[in-house]
């Protein structure tokens, strides 16, 4: 006499367990739709069709390395003033501070968060993993423009990069891809 109710309750439990994982894509979709969270898109943007000549927006750049990541990246100019729709190039100089080959991944974030969907990147070193040899110095270029639809109350925005050391993860991926025999369990232990 209990089994019908028991079945429903167990299904409810399993559904809630699945819901916890469903929260992950839901969260991303919610942030994308509302433009919250300052997470800019990592897709290559197309050039803007028009330029707003009557408006100026300040864009500043900051970078910081995640604890332990041996990288130093800085923009040549701390701040540029741009017209919405106008494509701007900014040079970044990057260095691997360690004595080993490392792989860097830069994750962008825009403040104020609501402005993140109005900042379009046509070229960015954050689109790819950046392998760097020991002590190597590299120059990167960022090509971006600010959307003409940027709300008028936003007069300045900041593009911040967090630098992560993903050497281990990318080695794992490379190893797993290179091996047909899935012995990846052993490599992931390292």
């Amino acid at each position, binding site marked *: 006499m*209990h089994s019908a109710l028991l079945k429903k309750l167990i299904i409810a439990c399993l559904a809630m367990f699945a819901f916890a994982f469903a*929260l992950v894509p839901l969260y991303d979709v919610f942030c994308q739709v509302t433009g919250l969270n300052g997470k800019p898109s990592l897709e290559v943007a197309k050039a803007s069709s028009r330029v707003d000549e009557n408006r100026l927006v300040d864009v500043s750049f900051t970078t910081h390395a995640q604890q332990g990541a041996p990288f130093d990246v800085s923009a040549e100019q701390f701040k540029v003033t741009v017209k919405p729709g106008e494509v701007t190039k900014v040079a970044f100089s990057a260095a691997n501070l360690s004595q080993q080959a490392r792989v860097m991944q830069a994750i962008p974030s825009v403040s104020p968060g609501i402005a993140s969907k109005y900042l379009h990147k046509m070229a960015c070193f954050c689109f790819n993993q950046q392998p760097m040899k020991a002590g190597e110095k590299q120059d990167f270029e960022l090509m971006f423009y600010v959307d003409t639809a940027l709300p008028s109350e936003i007069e300045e925005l900041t593009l911040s990069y967090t630098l992560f050391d993903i050497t281990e993860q990318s080695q794992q991926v490379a190893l797993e891809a290179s091996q047909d025999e899935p012995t990846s369990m052993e490599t992931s232990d390292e």
Partner: protein
Amino acid sequence: MSSIVNPHDHGHDDHHGAPSGFKRWLFTTNHKDIGSLYLIFALAMFIIGGAMAMVIRAELFQPGLQLVDPHFFNQMTTVHGLIMVFGAVMPAFTGLANWMIPMMIGAPDMALPRMNNWSFWILPFAFAMLLFSLFMEGGGPAFGWTFYAPLSTTYSNDNTALFVFAVHIMGISSIMGAINVVVTIVNLRAPGMTWMKLPLFVWTWLITAFLLIAVMPVLAGAVTMVLTDKYFGTSFFDAAGGGDPVMFQHIFWFFGHPEVYIMILPAFGVISTIVPTFSHKKLFGYASMVYATASIALLSFVVWAHHMFTTGMPLAGELFFMYATMLISVPTGVKVFNWVATMWRGAISFEVPMLFSIAFIVLFTLGGFSGLMLAITPADFQYHDTYFVVAHFHYVLVTGAVFSIMAAAYYWLPKWTGHMFNETLAKWHFWLSLISVNVLFFPMHFVGLAGMPRRIPDYALQFADFNAIISIGGFAFGLSQLLFVYVVYRCVKGGDAAPAKVWDGAEGLEWEVPSPAPYHTFSTPPEIK
């Protein structure tokens, strides 16, 4: 229903070839045995978790680092929280549910007795795993009971897997306990026991069980994500791989906020049972109590981000979560009003369960008010992660949940053991606890408002005097609980025989069976008028 009124059970109510000694407890499917096991386990965990709190207060007695190193201090704050939440308060309420719900609704036992056995007996393994991780190389979990990523993923040690599996087992145990409570209440009520005749303790537990079923799987999901992030290279919470550490907090608090109501709704049920007994009046506003409990449970799902006001949420989000949180004080206010209205012009007698209940009403309300202060978004930026928060949640959990468990224990102890407890010692326990708990937690409001951060083993010199007072209160409160253990022990061993109806104002089916309650009760369902 034929299995319930099995004539074979009559006549030899005590033993039918049941194993004795340890095996009796290991194999038992009797709700009273399992209820006792839960309660004894919860008491043991309360003492262990309390000992950890003593370590914390000893270290904070003076500024500077004296007794333990900061890493061990972090393990103490983490494991103290985990043990008190999952090891003491939740099993204590499950124990009360096991003992009392079948007797209150006139059922012969819980609906799923074997699952009941299993849901208890996996618990000791979970806590053994958690506690032994403290002795392993690198130590136990040290990232706070909330295990925020990346503290629990990037910056934790390899023993985190033990923490994850311990939480998985605790979750499975709670879910099985909750399923059992729901099935018992829905299917095994005595004939005539309609929904609106259910004792309030049963109602609050039914709603709590639904909360458990809804959110414990989400906690299991969160710890699973931590596990795969840490050991299997996923990036749920790692920005480098496209994840988001703030998302951890959303998932965790989606579990975490209903969880705090899981720990307080059964307390509301206990207080709603005890206050009418000793006021010698019917409970004021029974129906509104039921609806208030249900509203609190529903609202608890839409307030989680009030734990995250400082994470950089947009203004609209902060306002929504602020107002939604404040809305919860309406049904909670209804409950407090009803308790006070029940006592109003009642012939109150101040036995020990009533003393704890009155202390609960006053001090829980105080904790509720500091919660309202924390709900104010702009003010929360000052209070966030200070001792003010510690003061708030200890007022609602210690003088709230724990005091209600003490009240329940004193209220039903004569029914469980058949003996009256030593009332003089019990009163000493109450007054010592009441005074010391306020010496312990009240000054925390002030050091918190003055800016002392939580979870740090050292503090600025200006907080030294208050912290010394807090620690003295802490030691006094901790020692007073040993008196509770002694009173319970003495009561189990002997004492004046208790009548069937222990308290003359008490109502309910549990008072119609003799004291101590026989091993099998209501094998024939009672008739409810």
